[in-house]
């Protein structure tokens, strides 16, 4: 599977990191995200496990974790997103299961997903102030709404 992915992704790979036999971190450009997920999910039949958004202080990062179940391997796509323009194309048209996690990242980290069918609050209440994103590193409890 490792070679197959290398071959299919070709020069879309920015950085190929093999952490150990079971974990691979593949950095790609954010423009390629739809294409690459299409390849991994539809063509190579990997299972989408989850995506995780991270505030790395310098920029944002989203990791899309794909699992090759019968080989016991995780391939994680790493996409870096600038803080000035936190947006990326949605993959939920390709993978239905990504619908919720994109909504979650949108509300907890404030990253916009272009082309998501229904980007609305998933976890927090409707009256949670816009722009207050709990998972950002500069968030403190003082920023949360006073009253429940």
């Amino acid at each position, binding site marked *: 599977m490792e070679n197959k992915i290398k071959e299919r992704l070709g020069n879309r790979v920015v950085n190929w990191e093999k952490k150990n036999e079971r974990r691979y971190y593949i950095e790609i450009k954010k423009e390629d995200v739809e294409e690459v997920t299409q390849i991994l999910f539809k063509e190579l039949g990997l299972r989408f496990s989850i995506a995780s958004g991270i505030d790395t202080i310098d920029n944002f990062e989203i990791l899309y974790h794909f699992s090759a179940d019968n080989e016991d391997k995780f391939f994680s796509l790493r996409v870096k997103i600038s803080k000035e323009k936190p947006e990326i194309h949605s993959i939920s048209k390709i993978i239905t299961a990504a619908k919720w996690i994109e909504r979650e990242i949108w509300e907890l980290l404030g990253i916009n997903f272009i082309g998501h069918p229904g980007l609305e609050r998933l976890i*927090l*209440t409707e009256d*949670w102030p816009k722009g207050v994103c*709990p998972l950002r590193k500069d*968030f403190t*409890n003082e920023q*949360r*709404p006073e009253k*429940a």
Partner: protein
Amino acid sequence: MNKGKILSRSIWVFHFCSGSCNNCDIEILDALTPRFDLERFGIKLVGSIKHADCMLVTGMINKKGATRLKFLYDIAPKPLAVVAIGACACSGGIFEPSYYTYGPVDKIIPVDAYIPGCPARPEALIDGIVKVVKKLST
């Protein structure tokens, strides 16, 4: 007539959970099943607060839950015994510093009894409810 006396037999219980790990909730249910079998005392869970004599609250009470808890308490027929079950409901527990905590329970509504524990054992639940009934009927 002492209103509290009404509560001393066949208490109907309403169960509210908000932001709990649901272990306390399982133990509440567990207390109803064969080993502990609270139903033999006429204690049963009801689906509406309007039918309840006692409200069991579990969890650290998050933002979505806090407004609802207040509302439920306001519309409930009194007297209503409120019991906070588990470390989270009593004090916030491990979730106390979270950005989504708007509890513990006694910050929102008056509480009659606290049953600590993580989770509170069914024996503790039974003991707690017996105590709250005693307190209310005197």
